[in-house]
Every structure is written in structure tokens, then in C-alpha cells.
């Protein structure tokens, strides 16, 4: 190299290479509420997955006298108005509630990202059309709309999940679009474009990974709201009658709320604790993924 140049600059010892993911994890672990919530949610998931195997009582079978209070006659959580085992209902119902929550949230994230990404990337007519569709879904009363879907196509688990997914993707679409609008103007996107990246590569490999943090937070929160939504539908008797879910237990026992309040309270607590945990985790993710709160 030419002699008149001095291109080495005095630098501090380089920091160790650290993946952004590790940084997020460190930040998340520092949030005590989020860590506690993660542990609780983990326990709930484990109970829902392995509970029915370890405690194989059929949740629909009438096994004892109705309204047996919790802790008597060997029934840890008592029995409901038909003499069915509450513990078994809770464990089996957890499976259903969590599955619906997860699948519906994934579905709405998928639809939302597709709409938001295309609208934010291509702008113009594409954006106009996609965002008007999004607004159409946004102004529909969600519970009413999903009830119509369930009433039309029958109350099976699949239909209920799809109904929840269809009514709740709009928020993801708007967030994704906003992030795409912001990121597409950044110079590293122009750099990739000038290097020859196709639109598909730009959308999926360049912009989307950088748009993900707020979407992940929203997705986490959506699992909680999907569980609540399913509980609402089941409470109204609009969920699959052949499977137990927490909402369905509450709904079927609601007339006896004054005589045997535990039959409603216990599944209600399960929903409350689960959704609260998910919200706290979402909150922790929000803080961890927000670069402004990160110490550099």
C-alpha cells in the first residue's frame, strides 16, 4: 500500500462477537416478571401435554356424585354438575385451549405478514387494495363475525380455530406494513437491491428479519387473546361439543355458579393465569427486542 497513507486507526480491543439473539435473551432474563411467567407457562404446557397421559380419566365420563367439592373423595378439583372429574377436564381442556391459541395465532401471523409485507413493499395499488381489505376485517365486530363463521360451517375445532385466525390478523398486517414502510427506505435495502437481490429476497431475507421484533411481540399477545376468544365462543356454546376446553367447562357449569362456584372458578383461573403469563412474556419480549432499552 502507498506510503503516504496511514489507514490503521487506534481502536479499543474488539468486543466479542455476540449474536443479537443472545443479547435479547440476556435482556429477557433480566425481566423477573417475564421469567416467572415463562416458568408458569412452561408448567401449564407440560401439564396440558403430559397430564392426560399421567391422569387418564375420561373428562366426559360421569365418575362420581355431582358437585363434589375439591379435595373430597380423592377428587383433587372435585366434580362438575354431571359428576365429571374437574381435574381431567382441566388437563384435557388445556390441550385444546393452548392448541387453538397457538394455531390461531400462527395463522393470523401468517395472513398478517403476507398482507402487510406485500402492501408495505410494493406500495401503490397493491397497498391500497390490501389495506382496504384489512380495514374491512378490522371494522367487523370480531366476536359476531366468528360466530357467523362457526354457525355457517359447524362447530368443529378446525372451524373455530380458523374463525379466530381470520378475525385477528389485522393488527399483524398493520404492524408489518408499518415496519416494511420504514425499513424499505433504509440504505441497506438499496444496497442489497443494487447488489442484485430480487424482490422476493428483499422481502423475505432482508426486510422481514429486521421487521420481526414487533411482530413477535404481537404474536405472543395474540396467543393469549386467541385463548380468550375460544373461551368466549365455548362459553356461548359455539365450540366443538365433542372436546373439552376451559371455556366450555365454564359455559356448561355457568348456571350453577352460585351453588358450586368452584366449577366455574377453577377453569377461569386457568385461563387467567395462562393469558396473564403470555402477556407478561410478550411484555418482556417487547422490552428485550426494543433496541432503545438495550444497553450497548
Amino acid at each position, binding site marked *: 500500500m502507498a506510503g503516504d497513507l496511514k489507514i490503521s486507526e487506534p481502536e479499543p480491543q474488539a468486543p466479542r462477537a455476540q449474536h443479537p439473539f443472545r443479547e435479547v435473551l440476556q435482556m429477557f432474563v433480566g425481566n423477573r416478571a417475564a421469567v416467572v411467567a415463562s416458568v408458569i407457562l412452561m408448567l401449564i404446557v407440560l401439564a396440558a401435554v403430559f397430564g392426560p397421559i399421567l391422569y387418564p380419566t375420561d373428562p366426559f365420563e360421569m365418575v362420581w356424585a355431582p358437585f363434589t367439592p375439591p379435595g373430597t373423595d380423592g377428587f383433587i378439583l372435585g366434580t362438575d354438575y354431571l359428576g365429571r372429574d374437574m381435574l381431567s377436564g382441566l388437563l384435557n381442556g388445556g390441550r385444546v385451549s393452548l392448541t387453538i391459541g397457538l394455531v390461531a395465532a400462527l395463522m393470523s401471523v401468517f395472513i398478517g405478514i403476507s398482507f402487510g409485507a406485500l402492501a408495505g413493499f410494493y406500495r401503490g395499488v397493491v397497498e391500497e387494495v390490501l389495506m382496504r381489505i384489512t380495514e374491512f376485517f378490522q371494522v367487523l365486530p370480531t366476536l359476531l363475525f366468528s360466530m357467523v363463521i362457526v354457525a355457517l360451517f359447524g362447530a368443529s375445532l378446525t372451524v373455530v380455530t380458523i374463525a379466530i385466525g381470520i378475525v385477528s390478523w389485522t393488527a399483524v398486517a398493520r404492524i408489518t406494513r408499518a415496519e416494511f414502510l420504514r425499513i424499505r427506505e433504509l440504505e441497506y435495502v438499496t*444496497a442489497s437491491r443494487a447488489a442484485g437481490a430480487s424482490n422476493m429476497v428483499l422481502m423475505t431475507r432482508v426486510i422481514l428479519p429486521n421487521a420481526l421484533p414487533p411482530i413477535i411481540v404481537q404474536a405472543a399477545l395474540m396467543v393469549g387473546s386467541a385463548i380468550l376468544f375460544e373461551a368466549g365462543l365455548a362459553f356461548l356454546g359455539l365450540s366443538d361439543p365433542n372436546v373439552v376446553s376451559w371455556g366450555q367447562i365454564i359455559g356448561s357449569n355457568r348456571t350453577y355458579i352460585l351453588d358450586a362456584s368452584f366449577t366455574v372458578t377453577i377453569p377461569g383461573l386457568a385461563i387467567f393465569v395462562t393469558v396473564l403469563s403470555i402477556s407478561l412474556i410478550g411484555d418482556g419480549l417487547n422490552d428485550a427486542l426494543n433496541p432503545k432499552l438495550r444497553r450497548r
Partner: protein
Amino acid sequence: MAGQGPDHALAVENLSVAYPLKGRDKSGARRRLLAVDDVSFAIRRGTTLGIVGESGSGKTTAAMAAALDAAALRRARQRVQIIFQDPYSSLNPRLRAAEIVREPMLHAGRTNRAEQDRVIDELFEAVGLRPEQKSLFPHQFSGGQRQRIGIARALSTRPSLIICDEPVSALDVAVQAQILNLLKSLQRQFDLTYLFISHDLGVVQHMCDEVAVMYMGKFMEQAERDSFFAAPRHPYSRALLDAVPTIEAAARPRPPLVDGAIPDLSEPQTGCRFASRCPHAMPRCENEVPLLADATGAAGHHRLACHLADEIGSAASG
């Protein structure tokens, strides 16, 4: 529009860029903003053409249009690369430094991994980064180091032409000097041609073999560096040079400031764009667009778009 001649790395002829605006004008045609109006230039291999102008003069638009136009041709793409202004937004925060440098090679179809790694190692050394920094993420670098990564990225496909879009204006002065020296040494090392966009005349004087002054989408003056800085002909060029704060200038009586409104580019231009601010404007300047023509009495290559070329030329030498 953009092509390559035998001894030119880039030749741009009659480049115009218009942005569509909302609404229509009186004749019913869509309104548009003519950001770059009929600009032509050619850069000889191994030299640097600097385009100077105020913010919004269209200099970046012209360069990017030339770059992306060339990039549309698959073969030309690898040979034209860009160094960006802002080292903070021009690097993808999710990629490690080595992957950022690798990206253009992937898109250029150079898929031999070992060959890519060799190029990356070589470029890290060439731009003054240490090998262990290859696995770091952009936020772990300083602004100057980030710009070095951006430079390495631009070099990875072995381009012949690099468009430098204000590559140092986001850096502090000490780092600016390092990066400019680096660019100069790389130019010699890799036989590069630069199209150098800047608003800083000092930087342009240091870097460029030829200077083009742009104002409101048009070239006002285009000349070899020494000819330009010795005797700028165009009233706008002089205003630009007078605006550079120097110690001598502080002692001198202040030159007349350029004031007046800038033209509205969404309207068709009938005369010289600088007429509204020009201290020497005459009626002809309002009604007739001056063409870029060889300046009289200049030592080397020196072109000027001004109706008053001769009068001002003699005034400058006198």
C-alpha cells in the same frame, strides 16, 4: 442511457429523472417533479468525477439513477457498486460483517464458498479491518469502521466503477480524512473509477480529477479540478466557493450572499434555473435555457451553462 465507452468507465447521456406528483396541471398532464434534467457525463477509467451541489440539487438522484440503471443489466451490475452516505443505515443489522461483504458476491452468482472467503479476507485487510472482526455485527463497530465494511462490500464483486454517495459526510473530520485516504489508495490498488457525490468542496478538491456543479437538476459547470478551483466561471459555482468558510474569508469583506427563491421544479422551466438567485441575471436568462458549452479561454476541459459566460470569464481573469 448508461453505458461504457472504450476509455470511459461510465458514460451517461441525456439522463432525466422525474418523480410523479399528485394532481394534474392546466393541460391535463400529470404533474411531475423533474429532479434531474438532461444530464450527460462520462468518466475516464481510473479517475474520479465529483458532483457537487446543495441538498436537493439532484446529485444523488442522478448518481443512483445511473447506478440502478446499470444494475438492471445483469452483466453491468457486478461492475458498478455503491458506497452509501450513512454507515448506520447502510449495513443490515442482522448480518455479520463478513456476510455483509459476501452478499453482493452471492447475488452475482459467485457461489464458490472458499473463493468468497478468500475475497473477504483480502478485502478486510485492504480496508484496514482485523480478521477477527469478520464475525462481529454492525452495531459493534464505530462509524468509520462501518464505512470500511461498506467499502469492502462495494469492492467484493471487483467493480470497475464505484458510486460514492457522500461517503464521508456522516463521519467526523478525523475519520473523514482516513476514509478519503483509504478510497484514494484503493483506487490505485484496484484501478477503480469513482463517481463521487458531495456537498463539501474541500473533499471534492481532495478527491476528484473532474468536477461537475449541479443546481436544480442541471449541470451548471463541468471542468477539470485545477481549472475549476483556480477560476470557477459560473455565478453559482462562485457562490458555492464563497460560501466555504475560511480564515482568509473571515478577514475579507463578505461577498454578496446568494438570495432569492429557488425555482419550482414541478413547473416547466423556461430559463436558467439559477436566474432567480443570480446577481448577474438579465432578461435573456429568464427566457432561454443556457446550454453546457466549452468555456472560452480555459486551459483544459471546462464547460459552462451560462449566457454570461464570456463576460464573467473575462471578469474572472481580470
